[in-house]
């Protein structure tokens, strides 16, 4: 299976290598560098690169290439999925997964990798188990270790691996038992110039943070399970119960995890809560172009749209832009030709707009088509799909449920418009916290968290694997 792993940073240095079978010379990475050179951007490096004797499978995240060397037939997704799991684990351990972090914690990284694979076959990939085997570094522990000379390796051998619930360690104790469930929804839409939706999909996830003592067995149900078209579960969820009763029944892992992700089918009924008015024109004769966009709310059910961010890749001919925003800040990078405008909140009374002119390179003809506009936004407390959880009391404690939803949209020029000045826009819609546990039958337990707790977006974002993806801009978060 997986023979070796090389971590390569953006500048092409191999800064970590690990072998599970006999060592493979790092010169094998030359094939990778070759491919990297051929691809203009890091994202275009093919994930599977054949070499005469090996095959290189790589994953690009956090500006690091994780290159696995394999020698014989293996399902490629197996390796790719595993590499992603490795990255997730690092992230889980160190908060961020960056070159510096990995270098700083090289011993822990090595130990973790050692536990995760045996002879190239995954051994322990559940973060709960790993954390029991190898304690993640914390500032406190570093200090303690310094003084006492103890280490990150768990003193007690874990039992979890051997328990029948492999994802949960035994003997979990909390004084404050609490569990949070975040519902996050994303709309991903393509909208043409005239504002009609070409495609729109709602994709949602339920992220949970469960801190409960013992071996709790939880059930969750939905007010409207039919909405969910396609679901994938954390392994802890019992398939059969879902099949038969549409109830999520599970023994949760300890801590943060993604309980399920789902897809909402009613594609055409998605009401996109934002619109963009645009007027972008280039003139063949003059070296000036006009640029004007306005963002406004639409069908938001009374919620505010926040965190609005507009980005647009301008055509190569644009030299500079002199724009004035009515609110927020904007940046135009003349090298990458990327315009980004951080709008913030939308005030329906005074719609934010960005106006000004573009300087075009003299002598070049006007661009074929107007740029695509990507738009991201968040709306708290709004379920685009209308999905909601039914509160389910857990023994002795109430679960405050926070729901966060988000959505976003991509718009693009209309394919058939005769004039070519079609800007595309992509919008992302935001987050909502809904205390879905709205009718608590019982008093809230001690220490239960704020039900309306709003997610700290940036950190969430950091934890969101989508963002490291190639199409990261496509997602709101």
């Amino acid at each position: 299976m997986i023979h070796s792993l090389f971590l390569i940073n953006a500048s092409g240095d191999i800064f970590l290598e690990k072998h599970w079978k006999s060592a493979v010379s790092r010169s094998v990475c030359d094939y990778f560098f070759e491919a990297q050179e051929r691809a203009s951007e890091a994202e275009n490096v093919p994930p599977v690169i054949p070499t005469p004797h090996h095959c290189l499978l790589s994953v690009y995240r956090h500006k690091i290439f994780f290159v696995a060397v394999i020698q014989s037939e293996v399902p490629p997704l197996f390796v790719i999925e595993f590499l992603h799991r490795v990255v997730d684990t690092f992230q889980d351990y160190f908060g961020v997964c960056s070159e510096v972090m990995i270098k700083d914690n090289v011993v822990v990284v090595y130990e973790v990798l050692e536990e995760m694979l045996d002879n190239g076959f995954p051994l322990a990939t559940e973060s709960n188990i790993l954390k029991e085997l190898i304690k993640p570094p914390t500032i406190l522990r570093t200090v303690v270790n310094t003084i006492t000379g103890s280490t990150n390796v768990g003193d007690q051998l874990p039992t979890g691996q051997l328990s029948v619930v492999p994802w949960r360690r035994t003997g979990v104790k909390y004084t404050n038992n609490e569990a949070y469930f975040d519902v996050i929804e994303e709309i991903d839409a393509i909208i043409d110039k005239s504002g009609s939706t070409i495609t729109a999909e709602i994709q949602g996830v339920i992220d949970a943070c469960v801190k409960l003592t013992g071996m709790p067995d939880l059930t969750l149900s939905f007010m409207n399970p039919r909405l969910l078209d396609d679901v994938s579960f954390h392994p802890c969820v019992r398939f059969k119960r879902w099949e038969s009763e549409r109830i999520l029944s599970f023994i949760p892992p300890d801590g943060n995890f993604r309980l399920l992700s789902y897809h909402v089918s009613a594609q055409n009924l998605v009401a996109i809560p934002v619109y963009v008015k645009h007027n972008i024109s280039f003139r063949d004769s003059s070296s000036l172009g006009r640029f004007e966009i306005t963002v406004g709310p639409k069908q938001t059910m009374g919620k505010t749209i926040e965190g609005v961010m507009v980005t647009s890749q301008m055509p190569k001919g644009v030299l500079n832009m002199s724009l004035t925003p009515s609110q927020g800040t904007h940046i135009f990078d003349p090298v990458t030709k990327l315009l980004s405008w951080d709008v913030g909140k939308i005030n329906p009374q005074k719609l934010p707009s960005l106006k000004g002119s573009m300087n075009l390179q003299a002598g070049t003809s006007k661009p074929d088509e107007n740029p695509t506009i990507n738009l991201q936004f968040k709306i708290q407390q709004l379920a685009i799909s209308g999905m909601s959880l039914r509160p389910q009391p857990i023994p002795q404690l109430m679960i405050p449920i926070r729901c966060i939803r988000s959505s976003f949209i991509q718009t693009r020029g209309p394919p058939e418009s005769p004039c070519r000045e079609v800007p595309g826009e992509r919008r992302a819609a935001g987050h909502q916290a809904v205390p879905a546990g709205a009718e608590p039958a019982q008093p809230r337990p001690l220490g239960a968290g704020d039900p309306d707790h709003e997610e700290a977006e940036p950190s969430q974002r950091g934890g969101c694997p989508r963002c490291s993806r190639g199409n990261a801009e496509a997602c709101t978060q």
Partner: protein
Amino acid sequence: MSGNGHSYGEQAGEAAPELAQEAAPTTAPSVPAAFGLFSSDTKKNEDLKQMLESSKDSAKLDAMKRIVGMIAKGKNASELFPAVVKNVASKNIEIKKLVYVYLMRYAEEQQDLALLSISTFQRALKDPNQLIRASALRVLSSIRVPIIVPIMMLAIKEASSDLSPYVRKNAAHAIQKLYSLDPEQKEMLIEVIEKLLKDRSTLVAGSVVMAFEEVCPDRIDLIHKNYRKLCNLLVDVEEWGQVVIIHMLTRYARTQFVSPWKTDDDVVEEYNENNFYESDGEQKEKDRNVKKTYTMDPDHRLLLRNTKPLLQSRNAAVVMAVAQLYWHLAPKSEAGIVSKSLVRLLRSNREVQYIVLQNIATMSIQRKGMFEPYLKSFYVRSTDPTMIKTLKLEILTNLANEANISTLLREFQTYVKSQDKQFAAATIQAIGRCATNITEVTDTCLNGLVCLLSNRDETVVAESVVVIKKLLQTQPAHHGEIIKHMAKLLDNITVPVARASILWLIGEYCERVPKIAPDVLRKTAKSFTNEDDLVKLQILNLGAKLYLTNSKQTKLLTQYVLNLGKYDQSYDIRDRTRFIRQLIVPNEKSGALSKYAKKIFLAQKPAPLLESPFKDRDHFQLGTLSHTLNSRATGYLELSDWPDVAPDPAVRNVEVAESAKEWTAILGKTKKEKPTEKFYSESEEEEDESASTGATESESGSESEKEDKEEGSSDESSGSSSSSEESSDSESDSKESTAKKTSGAVKESNAEESKKKAKGISKNRNTSSSSDTESSSSEGSSSDSKSVSDSRSDSDSGKSGSATSSKKEEKTAQDRKTPSKQDVFLLDLDDFYPVTTPVAVPTAAVLSPSLTADLEGLSLSGSSVIDQVTTQVFVPTKTHEMLHRMTGKGLSAHYHFSRQPDMFGDHMVPVQVTVTNTTDQKIENIHIGEKKLPLGMRIHEFNPIECLEPGGSVTVSMGIDFCDSTQTASFQLCTKDDHFNVNIQPPVGELLLPVTMSEKDFKKEQGMLTGMNETSATIAVAPQNSTSLVIIEKVVKAANLGVVPSGQDNIHRFAAKTVHSGSLMLVTVELKESSTAQLIINTEKTVIGSVLLRELKPVLSQG
């Protein structure tokens, strides 16, 4: 810390700064003194050696950390080997771990020294801690020193029969390592694999199949016996194991089953969701119905059925594995279910998308229908990386048909404008393909492409030219205009391929454009020397063709061009020139060929086929690396074609007796079932064999198993929890010994086995008159003869807690001289009578002797803390009228609840129906007719009564699955010539099955069922009801509850689970002062809980 880094950097030269970065944060705090000590690489290593030899663990640890840092960096640390290997026996776990890391890396290079460490591992292999055993085995097998092969072999053999599944898992991994080290050991290793394949632990399954694939993938015969087990375990295996097993099973199935595709069209077998969890028994019946055409092997169906839920896995590799399994194995009509899940994966990471899209591309060529509904999901987003865009485009093209082509072309138009020119070019190719595939739009596409010729972007134009060339070739009839247009473009286009294409077109169709062609040649002859080779060749071609068709005008031009070509730098062009000259210019040497020059040059050329690059990829198994690369990877295992005739399916029948016994023998202990084996497996396996048990059983089984796990992960032997579980277990156990018998007989035999197991079975067991009241669990423990809690399980008896509690219990019981609940269990029926005087046992007659045995066999086969269903302690006598003799025209019927568990399968509530004939004639053929049941409810009918003499009465038993509701079951009671509508409504107390558990477990369970799940009430207890005996009696009479031994006099606890879903129902009666009592019910099924509360209230408050 940064300071430390500096000191490194200054002293250790170039390489050191990096090292400092790695090492400083972890090592810095405790070894400040060490930093000054080295000034060069060798010195540094000296320093490390010193630290390793120091007596302090902390120094050693720091040294090891730095060494690991070096390894990670890819630096050579091998010279430290002697110093490091000494520490292999270190007491400090972390040092040990790091030494292991080091050993695995360098042992191969320093074999002699590595041998020093072997004895440590050998010792560790005997360690009582399973994790230490496992890690010792891991390292031992990883160090790749050929000399120790025999030691490894021995260690693997030993570990493969280790008690701990974790160690066995590691043994399975070690098999592959040993095999790669020394393939000579293959035979021996296969033996070990064979043994491990029989392992029932989900932990082992994935790893051993992996080893199987690596070592002996051709030994398909090893799988036969384990096939069903693997299928059933699959859901519970960890995700990575699932992938490997699914791939292996795909290969296996292709050799063992006949193709479901051939007869696909006339296969009537309908696949619907409902049928998914139905028992195989029903499935079989269905199969039988369609036998006339094609019958899917039940094992084949089993595989498809058990893999389907995995489509919802979060792991993309698992989803893909299932998808390829369905693609390769499922009837074509069913393969569609995977598309939704595959499309879901498109929301995942870029790399995952890449692989999934590739596979979809292959699939979509063969079966468009699968992905057509998801067309829009493949629309390209501006933010996708190019490779993803191209793949999506590929799929869109594959999916194009008459219906959607217009939408697609509109979409393509947007793509053509994309700033990503590579992608725009690919789009043009795609349009070309659509044009050839769908004749309706060929002209539209062609026009569109011609429009693109005026595009400003050169690559777009060039690509269009190339595609137009191909298109024109397919239908050259009437496109003179386009060719003319293109000829005009020649001046502006610089891309060689495009220029070459235009020239070729003009040459090929020069007769259609007789005026333009010579002119073009003239122009190109001028620029000949500056052209690309590709273009030069086409100029030569054009010249030759014109010479042949229009030699008058072009003779000189052609010769000029040929002369230019003669002295060209490229030998290709010189070659071509010579060749053409000889062929077309007539001279004496040219001979016969020149006559045919025209035919040679202007032959009708076949139009190029515009095909998908994914066309032939499907000869590789989908989802494999070979498929992705489109070439065979090493170790790729060919997927065989379906056999024409299926090999004997009987090979998969399992007479597993040996496996269990083998284990027992090896372990030298009574077999304790691994907890992991249970999830869904047993009960489903049973379904396969005996159709008698309902499908739902497996569900409750698995449910209770899981609950079980929650309870006692420490409890190793939670082998079988509920009675359903037990029964299935016992059946499968007995399957081991006797392959196929009726379930009754099977159980009997099992009971006998269990008898042997129970050491001192009291003799009065056999004499006890009503076996139905006695649970086998109590027999099991009757060696102890007194405490019920012991009876619960062998393993449990080891627990001091329960033992003491039971003792206490006993004491109190004796003090009070009233039979406590435990006593109740143990009492012989004779003793029991006084307590439950009203109990008549009218059912005894009906119970077959074999049933008695059944019941005995029930609970012995496994043991668990909770959920062990005990037989009821009380059979209510209260009968209910079902059919009055007036309405029944002389036929009357009564029913009562016999509380006899497990007569008809687990979810059934057993009901005894007594039918009396009050007429003076015989009533014939009494049976159940039409049933009107609420959704989900089922009835197990009684056997028709053929004839009932006047005045006679007969008691029959039937089972009803009430689905844990108090809804009425209505059905018709029919006689030969009449039918009567009757109803049975269960009192809530009868929807339960009693459960034994200890007080501790009860409290634990109760703790988990609070909040909404708790209902309580305070009641006034009638004075005569305040003794515990009476309370127990009353409560047990009202509801089918099991008594939980209680440490306190004033608290009485009862436990049961609901018949259908197996949810726990915990009842607590707490006596308070002034003759009140608190009645608490904890259950998930709150509705039943509250109804039960309502029913229990009057029972206790009234006299």
